C-alpha cells in the first residue's frame, strides 16, 4: 500500500499516509486544503475531468501579496476601476488542462464577490471582475494562490500595441484574399480564352482595378515602408524587389486597362500580396504562453516595506531612494544593493551567483540586490536605487549593446536579395534598351514585364516557411524559440557554454550517499528530526534521502543552528551534531582533496563520530553522450557560480572542454562570453536563473533551461525543457540542415524566375502566363520547404 497511493489533488506519490480527508489521501496539507475548499463548494467535478489535476501547493508566505494593497500598484495593474467594479487580468502560468479552466471559471461559486472570470488558455491569463467593496485585490490573489494558481504579477505587461499589430496581419490577409478571389473570378473569361463583348470585358477590367486598390494601398503598405527604409539606410532587403514588382504590376495593369489593350495583371498583383502576407503570418507565429522577455524586474518584488516614521509601509520598489530603510521578511528578495542594519541575516544568493548555500552576513555588510532572505526578518539600508544595482546595471549594459547587434544581423535572404535587385534592374534596363531600337512602347512593356516576373515571391516565402517548419519541429520536441531569426543565428554557432546548476544538474534533486558506521533506525529518525528544522539545502537533501518510511518525526527537545557550520539538537536521548568536520567533531576523511569538502555533512551522535553524508548534485542523464557528440563540432565550456567541489566529476563528463570555471559571478560570465566573441566565435549559452541572465543576453543565442513549461525563466532567445538538453546536438544539426533547405528553395525559385524572364525579355509575357507562373512557383517552394524539413527531422529521429 505504501508508496503506491498518489495524492488525490495533484497526483504526486504520497510520502506519508497521515494526510487524509474522508477516504482520500493527499501528499501535503496544501493539497488537502484545496480539496476541502472545492468539496465545500461542490466543485469536485474538477477531479472528474482530469484525475490528479491539481497543482502542487507550495506554501506561499502570508505577506507575499501585501503590495497589492498599495493604491499606486493597483492603478497600474487594473484594467478597469470604479467604486464597485474592478477588472484585472492575471498571468497564471500554472494553467495546464481543462480542469484548470473549469475551476477558474467557477471562482464566482467559491467567492461570490468575484462576479465573473474568464481564462485564456493559450496565453495563460485569467480575467476577473470583482467587487472591491467585498474583496480586495490582495484577497483575490491570495485565493488564487491558495488554490494552486499563484498569479505572476509584474508591472511590465504586454503593451496593447503588440496585440493590435497581430490583428492587423489577419485583416490585411483577409482583405488581400477577398480582392484576390474576386479579381480571379472576373479574370476567368481570360483564363479560359472565352470571347466576350468588349463592353463587358472593359467593365470587368475596371472592376478589377477598383478591387486591386485596397490591396495596393492597405495590404501591401508594409512592403513599401520596409523597401523605403531599405533604400534609405542602404541596407538591401528582400522587400525592395517585391515593392518594385508590385509597382510594376500596378502601373503596367493600369496602362493596359486604360488604353484598352489588355486585361492587366491585377489577379497576379493581389495573389502575390496574399501569398506574401501568409508567409509573413507563418513567420510571425510565436509561443504566446511563454515569455522570452522577462527582465530583472520580474524577479524582484513590486513593493517592499519601507520605514516611514515609526511604522513600515508597503512602497513600490521604484520609489526607493538611497538611505531608505526597508524591512525584508523570510523568502523575500532584496530589491536593491543595500547594507544590513540588523545584527545578522542569512541570504541565499542562488539567483545572483548560482551558489546554493546561503551566506551569513552581519551588521554593516554589503548585500547585493537579488539575494533572498532566509529566516528571520531583517532591516536593510538602501545604498543604490533599484535601477543602479549591480545586477540591473550589468543587465542594462549588455542589453543596450546587444540590441543593435541582434537586430541587424543580416539574413541569408537579405544577402541574396542585394545581388538579386541589382541583377533584375540590369536585365530590365538592358532588354528595354534593346527593344527601344525597334519599338519604344514595346521597350516599356518588356521593362515592366521583367520586373513583374522577377518579383521574388517564391524567394520571399522560402525562408519563412522553412524556418517556421523547423521551429515547429523544435517546439514539438520542447525546445521553444522566441522567433525564427534565432534559427539563422544557430547556423553560425561554434562554441557552446553551459551553466552548471540547474542546467547540467537537475534543480530539485540531489544525490545523497552515506559513508561511515551504520546508523540504526532510531539514529535516522533523530537526524531527520534535526534536519527538518533547518532550511539549509543540504538539510533538506538529507531529509529527502532518509525519508523512506512513513513515520512521525518527533520534535527535537533542543535545536540550534550555527551559521555556516552546522546544526545541533537533542532528540529523545540522543545528541546529534551535523555539519562541517570541525563542528561535528569528526576527523575529515583523508583520501579526499580539501576542495571537495564542500559536499560533505559530517555526523556525530552523542559526541561519537559516525561518518558523513556525501551530497552531490544530480546530473542529467545522457550528458556524457551529448558532450562526446557535440565536442566533434563545437568548442565547449562550463561556467558555474558554484564552488569547485564537483570539478573532478565535471572533468569526467567534459573531457574535451576548453575550460571549466567555478565561482563565476554574473559579470564574469558575461566577460567569458564576450572574450569568446572577440575571438570571432559565435556563442550558444545555456543557463537558468537570474545569474545567467546577462550572459544569456550577451551570447549570440541564449537558451534558458526550465524544468517545466510554467517555470520562471530569464529573458532569452529560446527556452528548452530540462530533459531535452541531451537532444541539443540533434537540434543544432536540424538547424544547420534548414539552411541547406533554404538554399535549395532559393535555387528552385530562381529556376522559375529564369523561365519567366526568358518569356519577359522576348516580350511574350501574358497575364495568363503570369497568373500561372507566380502561384505555381510560390506553392512549389512552400511545399518543398515544409516537406524537406519534415523529412530531415524524421532522419534525425525527431518524432
Amino acid at each position, binding site marked *: 500500500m505504501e508508496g503506491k497511493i498518489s495524492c488525490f489533488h495533484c497526483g504526486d506519490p504520497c510520502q506519508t499516509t497521515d494526510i487524509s480527508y474522508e477516504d482520500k489521501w493527499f501528499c501535503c496539507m496544501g493539497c488537502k486544503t484545496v480539496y476541502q475548499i472545492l468539496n465545500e*463548494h*461542490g466543485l469536485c*467535478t474538477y477531479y472528474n*475531468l482530469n484525475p490528479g489535476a491539481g497543482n502542487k501547493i507550495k506554501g506561499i508566505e502570508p505577506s507575499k501579496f501585501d503590495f497589492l494593497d498599495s493604491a499606486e500598484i493597483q492603478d497600474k495593474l487594473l484594467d478597469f476601476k470604479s467604486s464597485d467594479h474592478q477588472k484585472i487580468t492575471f498571468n497564471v502560468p500554472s494553467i495546464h488542462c*481543462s480542469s484548470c*479552466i*473549469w475551476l477558474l*471559471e467557477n471562482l464566482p*461559486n467559491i467567492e461570490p464577490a468575484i462576479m465573473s472570470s474568464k*481564462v*485564456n*488558455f*493559450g*496565453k495563460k491569463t485569467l480575467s476577473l471582475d470583482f467587487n472591491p467593496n467585498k474583496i480586495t485585490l490582495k484577497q483575490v490573489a491570495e485565493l488564487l494562490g491558495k488554490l494552486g494558481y499563484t498569479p505572476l504579477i509584474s508591472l511590465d505587461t504586454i503593451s496593447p500595441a503588440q*496585440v493590435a499589430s497581430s*490583428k492587423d496581419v*489577419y*485583416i490585411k490577409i*483577409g*482583405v488581400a484574399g*477577398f480582392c484576390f*478571389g*474576386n479579381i480571379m473570378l*472576373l479574370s476567368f473569361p481570360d483564363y479560359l480564352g472565352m470571347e466576350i*463583348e468588349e*463592353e*463587358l470585358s472593359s*467593365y470587368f477590367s475596371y*472592376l478589377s482595378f477598383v478591387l486591386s486598390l485596397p490591396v495596393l494601398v492597405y495590404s501591401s503598405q508594409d512592403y513599401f515602408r520596409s523597401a523605403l527604409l531599405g533604400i534609405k539606410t542602404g541596407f538591401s532587403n528582400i522587400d525592395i524587389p517585391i515593392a518594385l514588382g508590385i509597382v510594376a504590376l500596378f502601373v503596367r495593369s493600369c496602362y493596359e486597362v486604360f488604353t484598352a489593350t489588355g486585361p492587366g495583371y491585377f489577379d497576379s498583383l493581389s495573389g502575390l500580396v496574399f501569398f506574401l502576407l501568409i508567409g509573413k503570418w507563418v513567420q510571425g507565429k510565436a509561443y504566446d504562453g511563454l515569455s522570452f522577455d522577462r527582465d530583472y524586474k520580474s524577479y524582484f518584488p513590486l513593493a517592499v516595506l519601507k520605514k516611514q516614521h515609526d511604522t513600515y509601509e508597503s512602497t513600490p520598489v521604484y520609489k526607493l531612494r538611497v538611505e531608505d530603510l526597508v524591512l525584508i521578511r523570510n523568502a523575500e528578495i532584496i530589491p536593491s544593493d543595500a547594507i544590513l542594519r540588523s545584527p545578522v541575516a542569512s541570504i541565499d544568493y542562488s539567483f545572483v551567483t548560482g551558489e546554493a548555500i546561503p551566506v551569513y552576513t552581519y551588521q554593516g555588510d554589503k548585500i547585493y540586490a537579488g539575494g533572498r532572505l532566509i529566516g528571520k526578518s531583517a532591516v536593510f539600508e538602501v545604498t543604490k536605487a533599484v535601477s543602479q544595482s549591480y545586477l540591473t546595471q550589468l543587465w542594462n549594459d549588455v542589453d543596450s549593446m546587444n540590441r543593435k547587434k541582434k537586430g541587424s544581423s543580416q539574413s541569408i535572404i537579405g544577402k541574396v536579395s542585394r545581388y538579386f535587385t541589382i541583377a533584375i534592374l540590369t536585365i530590365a534596363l538592358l532588354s528595354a534598351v534593346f527593344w527601344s531600337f525597334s519599338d519604344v512602347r514595346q521597350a516599356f512593356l518588356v521593362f515592366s514585364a521583367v520586373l513583374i516576373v522577377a518579383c521574388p515571391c517564391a524567394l520571399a516565402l522560402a525562408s519563412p516557411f522553412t524556418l517556421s517548419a523547423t521551429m515547429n519541429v523544435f517546439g514539438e520536441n520542447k525546445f521553444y524559440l522566441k522567433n525564427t531569426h534565432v534559427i539563422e543565428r544557430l547556423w553560425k554557432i561554434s562554441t557552446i557554454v553551459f551553466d552548471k546548476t540547474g542546467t547540467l544538474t537537475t534543480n530539485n534533486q540531489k544525490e545523497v550517499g552515506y559513508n561511515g558506521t551504520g546508523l540504526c533506525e532510531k539514529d535516522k529518525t533523530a537526524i531527520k528530526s534535526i534536519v527538518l528544522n533547518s532550511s539549509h539545502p543540504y538539510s533538506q537533501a538529507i531529509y529527502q534521502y532518509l525519508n523512506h518510511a512513513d513515520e512521525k518525526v518527533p520534535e527535537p527537545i533542543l535545536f540550534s543552528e550555527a551559521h555556516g557550520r552546522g546544526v545541533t539538537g537533542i532528540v529523545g536521548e540522543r545528541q546529534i551534531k551535523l555539519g562541517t568536520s570541525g563542528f561535528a567533531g569528526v576527523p575529515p576523511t583523508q583520501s579526499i582533496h580539501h576542495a571537495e569538502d564542500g559536499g560533505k555533512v559530517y555526523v556525530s551522535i552523542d559526541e561519537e563520530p559516525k561518518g558523513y553524508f556525501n551530497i552531490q548534485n544530480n546530473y542529467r542523464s545522457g550528458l556524457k553522450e551529448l558532450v562526446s557528440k557535440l565536442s566533434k563540432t563545437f568548442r565547449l565550456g562550463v561556467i558555474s557560480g558554484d564552488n569547485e567541489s564537483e570539478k573532478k566529476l565535471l572533468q569526467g563528463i567534459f573531457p574535451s572542454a576548453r575550460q571549466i570555471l567555478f565561482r563565476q559571478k554574473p559579470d564574469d560570465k558575461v566577460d567569458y562570453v564576450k572574450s569568446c566573441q572577440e575571438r570571432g566565435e559565435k556563442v550558444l549559452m545555456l543557463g537558468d536563473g537570474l545569474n545567467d541572465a546577462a550572459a544569456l543576453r550577451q551570447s549570440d543565442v541564449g537558451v534558458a533551461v526550465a524544468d517545466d513549461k510554467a517555470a520562471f525563466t530569464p529573458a532569452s532567445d529560446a527556452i528548452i525543457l530540462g530533459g531535452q538538453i541531451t537532444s541539443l546536438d540533434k537540434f543544432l544539426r536540424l538547424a544547420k540542415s534548414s539552411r541547406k533547405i533554404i538554399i535549395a528553395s532559393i535555387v528552385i525559385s530562381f529556376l522559375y524566375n529564369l523561365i519567366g524572364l526568358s518569356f519577359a525579355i522576348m516580350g511574350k509575357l501574358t497575364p495568363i502566363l503570369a497568373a500561372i507562373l507566380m502561384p505555381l512557383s510560390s506553392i512549389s517552394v512552400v511545399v518543398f520547404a515544409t516537406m524537406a524539413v519534415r523529412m530531415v527531422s524524421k532522419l534525425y529521429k525527431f518524432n
Partner: protein
Amino acid sequence: MSVLVLLIMISITVATGFLALFIWAIKSGQFDDTDSPSIRMLIDDKKRSK
C-alpha cells in the same frame, strides 16, 4: 448582359458584407483565444444552489 452586370454587383456587395463581418470578428477579439472555448463547451455548467 445587363443581368450579368447586376449579378456581379450584387455578389460583390454580399462578399464585401462578409469581409466586413470578418474584420469585425477579428477586431472584437474572436480569434484571440482559440483554445479555451473548445474546452469550455465540453464542460457542463450545473447550477449550484450554494
